């Protein structure tokens, strides 16, 4: 029997007030321009209804979130990095970190940056410190070019109330040749509003990984985050984001890369955790010759709901975007990928590609993929695809015919499905860890 969901009740909003914005800004003694931006964002938030039946939201029902629990801002409460699982703190390569920032419950608990990167002029710090020490740089880029308050209800809420974040700045012609590593870990329930702002000036290069995780809990939590990746002309950014929130967390995030002339962005986004994730993942190719590769992997199980909404905006001619998402769902989990390639008029000779490959591991799971194109130019090569598969008996039989047990054969086939994506994570140790996490999900 088909279940018809009654959509009578409108989504509840959290009970934040203007006074919360003022209080937050006062508590940190923020500059007037930032306070003004927060107030503007609050205005937008106020006049925007809770998203519900809009096209990009109508398949995503988040009304079961208990805001009374989730809306409380997470308090640091004496948080230290000792609370963070060791696996999240392991160096990405070798024994050496280029840089490490660890946040626990929104509080910065570790901050390290290799001398060689300091000498290169690399800034890798928390956003609060950056506001103090590099105010002009932050002012120019914070929610002005990539994610903006007007992008949606949750983007506006984030812009009004973000409470902590990361600021990365690599100067012109500099290379951060050791990877930068950020860990955002929550040990308590409540709302976290984290911000990542990465700015690569012209011809700058960096490799970076950000991990999100939280301790198991019984109360609802929310992550209302934003990620901004700004790559200047000729720059090259490799960026990996791994999300593994606990099963009571609802993520509403806006993430956007802005790729300049002849610049490269190689972005891998992994979604394994949370109860519900609604992520807007967008790239804007804004300079001729910009090249963005956006990769995503996700694995949903036990009631998880992932909605990944991707957009590739070709705002300049001769731009290239290549998107590959691969996901699996088991138990009664549900996933949704909605993709869009857009071009402004007259943006000739652009090449946009998007594909989502789905592996359905149970009859109760549901996976949807909705690709789309809105192209207003004629000399273009744009295509999209979505595929759906299940575990087939033929390859299982083949592996078993060599002595491999059925469960092991199934495991190998699922891991093989993800291998192409995991190979895009530039850290061997992280790949192995992700494979272990996928294995844990398969074995359940």
């Amino acid at each position: 029997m088909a279940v018809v969901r009654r959509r009578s009740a409108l989504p509840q909003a959290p009970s934040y007030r203007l006074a919360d914005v003022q209080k937050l800004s006062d508590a940190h003694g923020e500059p007037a321009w930032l306070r003004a931006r927060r107030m503007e964002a609050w205005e937008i938030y106020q006049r925007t209804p809770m998203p519900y039946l809009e096209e990009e939201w109508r398949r995503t029902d988040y009304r079961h979130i208990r805001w009374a629990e989730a809306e409380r801002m997470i308090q640091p409460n004496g948080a230290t990095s000792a609370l963070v699982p060791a696996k999240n703190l392991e160096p990405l390569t070798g024994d050496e970190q280029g840089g490490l920032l660890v946040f626990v419950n929104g509080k910065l608990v570790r901050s390290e940056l290799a001398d060689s990167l300091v000498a290169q002029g690399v800034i890798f710090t928390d956003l609060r410190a950056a506001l103090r020490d590099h105010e002009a740089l932050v002012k120019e880029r914070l929610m002005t070019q990539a994610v903006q308050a007007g992008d949606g209800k949750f983007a506006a809420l984030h812009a009004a109330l973000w409470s902590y974040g990361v600021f990365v700045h690599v100067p012109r012609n500099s290379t951060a040749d050791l990877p930068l590593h950020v860990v955002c870990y929550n040990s308590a329930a409540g709302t976290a509003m984290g911000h990542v702002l990465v700015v690569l000036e012209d011809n700058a290069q960096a490799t970076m990984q950000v991990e999100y995780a939280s301790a198991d809990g019984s109360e609802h939590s929310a992550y209302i985050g934003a990620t901004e990746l700004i790559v200047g002309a000729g720059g090259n950014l490799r960026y990996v984001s791994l999300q593994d929130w606990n099963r009571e967390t609802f993520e509403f995030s806006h993430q956007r890369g802005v790729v300049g002339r002849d610049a490269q962005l190689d972005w891998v986004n992994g979604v394994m955790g949370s109860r519900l994730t609604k992520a807007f993942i967008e790239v804007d190719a804004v300079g001729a010759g910009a090249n963005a590769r956006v990769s995503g992997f996700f694995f949903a199980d036990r009631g998880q709901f992932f909605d990944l909404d991707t957009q590739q905006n070709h705002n300049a001619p001769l731009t290239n975007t290549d998107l590959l998402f691969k996901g699996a769902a088991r138990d009664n989990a549900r996933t949704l990928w909605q993709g869009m390639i857009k071009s402004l008029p007259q943006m000739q000779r652009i090449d946009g590609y998007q594909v989502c490959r789905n592996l359905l591991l149970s009859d109760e799971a549901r996976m949807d993929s909705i690709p789309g194109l809105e192209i207003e130019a004629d000399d273009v090569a744009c295509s999209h695809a979505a595929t759906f598969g299940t575990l087939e008996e033929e390859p299982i039989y083949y592996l078993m015919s060599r002595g491999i047990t059925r469960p092991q054969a199934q495991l190998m086939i699922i891991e093989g499905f993800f291998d192409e994506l995991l190979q895009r994570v530039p850290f061997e140790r992280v790949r192995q860890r992700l494979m272990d996490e996928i294995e844990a999900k398969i074995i359940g």
Partner: protein
Amino acid sequence: MTATLEIRNLHASVDGDEDMILRGIDLTVKQGEIHALMGPNASGKSTLANVLMGNPAYEVHEGEVLLDGEDVLEMEPDERSRAGLFLAFQYPVAIPGVTLGNFLRHAINARLKAKDPDSKGIPIPKFARLMRGKMTQLHIDHSFAGRYLNEGFSGGEKKRAEVLQMAVLEPRIAVLDETDSGLDIDALRIVADGVNALTGPNMGALVITHYQRMLNYIKPDFVHVLYGGRIVESGGPELALELEDKGYEWIREKHEALLKVEV
């Protein structure tokens, strides 16, 4: 002890289908022997190969298959493999994301774990030496081990990968299902050399082929002809030459009745 594969009065069909493809096969293959099984198209050759390995797409209705007296038909495909049976597939399936090397390491570890549940598996350096040795023996480029299993392999590469798997897993009885199909003469010679290097006192083989040409390179001790789901002729190597000479037409004429009676 010499391993013996005994097939007795085997009847089988495609799963869920009433029409028998195999209609009473009797055949015994011993370790150290090479048997060639020939026959025209649709005589049931590949069905026999798949039924022996336990392909779930087929259903056995009657008869038995014993390996050293053990009931093979009761075993899952992985148990059959660990008992010493091997099938070189006619159409090996591609497994994206799983390298040939990783796959074979898991296959060896599955054997070790079946013997000893606490086994930690083969140490990687030892496995690497084993693989390199076998690939050298079979004139296979060492980069082969790092490629995704059968993905983008040419017809010849797929067959060589099958022979490599056989070499690494060292079965006691191997079934080669039309391993010659789709190969040019050079590739055929390489594959046949590999099979010849492995057969001997430790391995018996059932070489299934449509054409005699494979038997120029792999010398069988016995030749059988499958027709209408039964073995209708058995003999020595001279039987293969006779088929080469006269084609399958005389088999059809001689045994046509077999098909009619059953239908």
